[in-house]
């Protein structure tokens, strides 16, 4: 399964339904607006059709993608232990979709789960806050997290045993 389809699954069902509704309703609203508001009754030829089609499709794409992105932010913030409502509001109200870009830059790493008790923990945690189980390999000297392949601790310089 591709990364894109995996990421799409994060979007909550209500957001998906809202995006589909927007895809159906927005072109219709644009069409109504073009015909009844913008067109001068004395110049109603067929020239308005391409304009209405392009405007309707563009509006449909922008609105649907916007809704899907806000939905994605809600789902993704939830699984990362961030605040979904706050980030959804920022994504909606910061102009020019800058809130969405900001979310992707500032989002936290994915949560990890304790192998002993299953509690959620931030990626930076070395030990489980619920049961005390080690969540990653630790330095025997300073108890800080060490990564695979390190021969020495990056914090205290202690020599690490080979895996």
């Amino acid at each position, binding site marked *: 399964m591709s*990364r894109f389809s995996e990421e799409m699954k994060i979007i909550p069902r209500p957001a998906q339904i809202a995006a589909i509704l927007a895809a159906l309703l927005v072109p219709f609203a644009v069409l109504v*607006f073009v015909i009844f508001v*913008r067109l001068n009754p004395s110049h109603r030829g067929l020239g308005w059709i391409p304009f209405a089609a392009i405007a309707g499709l*563009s*509006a449909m794409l*922008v609105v649907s*993608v*916007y809704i899907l*992105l806000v939905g994605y932010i809600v789902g993704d913030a939830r699984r990362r*232990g961030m605040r979904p409502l706050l980030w959804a509001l*920022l994504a909606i*109200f*910061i*102009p*020019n*979709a*800058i*809130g*969405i*870009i*900001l979310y*992707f*830059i*500032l989002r936290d790493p994915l*949560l990890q789960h304790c192998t002993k008790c299953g*509690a*959620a*923990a*931030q990626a*930076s945690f070395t030990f489980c806050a619920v049961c005390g189980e080690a969540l990653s390999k630790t330095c025997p000297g300073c108890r800080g997290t060490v*990564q*695979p*392949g390190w021969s020495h601790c990056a914090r205290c310089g202690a020599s690490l045993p*080979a*895996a």
Partner: protein
Amino acid sequence: MNTHESIRKLLPLAAAGALSQQEQLQVEAHARVCEICRRELDEWSVYASGLRGLPQPSTPETLIARTQARILREREAAAVRWNAFTLCGLAVFSWVASIGFWMLVRELSGGHVEVLGTNLVSAGPWFLVSFAVASITAAATALLVGNRSDAGRVL
């Protein structure tokens, strides 16, 4: 599949000692009464004991650590590529959305909204104001979120 066929499939594993105790006993019981399986089990046992007699290759001490580090590096590189691709797409979307929103406001307002002697919905003032507002809000959010300490967060 009859018992003979199902037991016959287990013979190589039985010879290698890779079956559970119950399966091993089943195979041995069948081999006692089935000439074909007994002969085949004996052949597999010769192979298995021969393989056990071969010198075992020793893995370098740091192989696991190096492999884990390599997997981690490749995963991080893939994540960086994905993030760059996402941010490029979002930057394009941001431009399309801002232009679309401007056109919508211009259409709905009839193309003229006078604020302090300037037509706010003409291209220059609109993009100046909207990007100023977006930048200020984004910077304030980044500062607030960036300064927030992770220590007190409840999961």
